[in-house]
């Protein structure tokens, strides 16, 4: 008997295509899983609404649940409450850091000061002697930084 807990567990295997080492659950993209009479309804929310990976994520979520034996799977996109980077789990923050991407600062719902603070800790050496080089990076969700101590660049996942 497969329960919603099993489905959540299976969704831990669905990775964000642009960050293929973290799952869509750890990223806070999956908001709800409902299992009723053999059909599954998932609510997901976009990180950045222009993210080109959204369609792939939607498809991958449905595919993974069908693999569990459910024929009836719907994936609904919801916009409320709006996704916030605060929902990125600690496990994902650790993985981001290990792969050279500084995790976003937690802002507790007050984004504007954080978006303007320009603080990032270098994921390699832990230095805060860093400078924002570009608020826009290789993907919508990342900014580009330079660490004066490492004398090398790094990326930060943007606070949202």
């Amino acid at each position: 008997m497969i329960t919603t807990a099993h489905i959540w567990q299976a969704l831990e295997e669905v990775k964000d295509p642009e960050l293929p080492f973290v799952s869509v659950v750890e990223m806070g993209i999956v908001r709800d899983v409902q299992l009723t009479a053999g059909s599954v309804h998932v609510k997901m929310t976009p990180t950045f609404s222009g993210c080109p990976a959204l369609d792939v994520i939607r498809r991958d979520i449905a595919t993974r649940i069908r693999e569990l034996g459910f024929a009836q799977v719907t994936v609904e996109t919801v916009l409320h409450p709006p996704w916030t980077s605060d929902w990125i789990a600690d496990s994902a923050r650790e993985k981001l850091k290990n792969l050279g991407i500084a995790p976003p600062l937690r802002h507790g719902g007050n984004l504007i000061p954080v978006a303007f603070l320009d603080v990032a800790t270098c994921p390699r050496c832990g230095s805060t002697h860093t400078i924002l080089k570009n608020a826009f990076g290789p993907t919508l969700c990342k900014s580009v930084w330079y660490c004066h101590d490492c004398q090398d660049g790094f990326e930060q996942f943007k606070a949202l």
Partner: protein
Amino acid sequence: MNLLISQSPNLIHHMTPLHPTALAQKLLFLADDELILAHRNSEWTGHGPILEEDIAFTNIALDEMGHAATWHRLRQELTGEEVDTAVFFRDPAAYRNVQLVELPHDDWAFSMLRQYLFDVYEMVHLAQLAASSYRPLAEAAAKIRIEEIYHLRHTAAWVTRLGLGTAESHRRMQAALDTLWPYAQQLFVNMPEDEELGEMGTAVTPTTLHHEWQHLTTTHLTLANLTIPTDHTPPTTNRAHHTHHLTHLLTEMQSVARQYPTAVW
């Protein structure tokens, strides 16, 4: 409500059956502004003056494209028309964007200033649209507004930098402002649908946003040593009227979809 009806004899007719029609049209205004601006900005991809700005403008274009898709999906719920059909198989005369966003860029300062003027409008507009009585509209506005913070932060900094920069950067910025300022005024013209929805609290009437927009842009642009043009007359007050530039833009944007209408990607 009686008061409103006495002011507008048509309103009683508009109360329920025409409401979704007006709303679908309003969503088209929102979607088309973002889509056409996104397309114009995407033309900088690979042509930006420096690598960082090439990347930044491309990101902003992608964001606006995502916002256009968000508005279009809300419209699809009301009309049933597929997003791709609405975008790729609609003729220029059926587009409802303001002329500001369809103008071809001749300069990077022009594109930066246009994006800035639009960003301020969006920040002012979305804050109020987030209080819409139509929940899907309110939720989308709240979501999009958060992302817009990064746009305005970026474009506002560049407006200052170019305005106060060299004589050449200032000259180009002022020229861009002289051209764009009257066009930007069209964002604050009410279409009949705006008035219908505004009365019901479903959307915000654009005229009510003008004061705040004007205050913010004028203050900032003046600090950037730019002179606000005296011409405040929009080129048109009707979103159905376009320049010939839109036809060229759509011909290019729609060409692949129209040549291969059954293609899937």
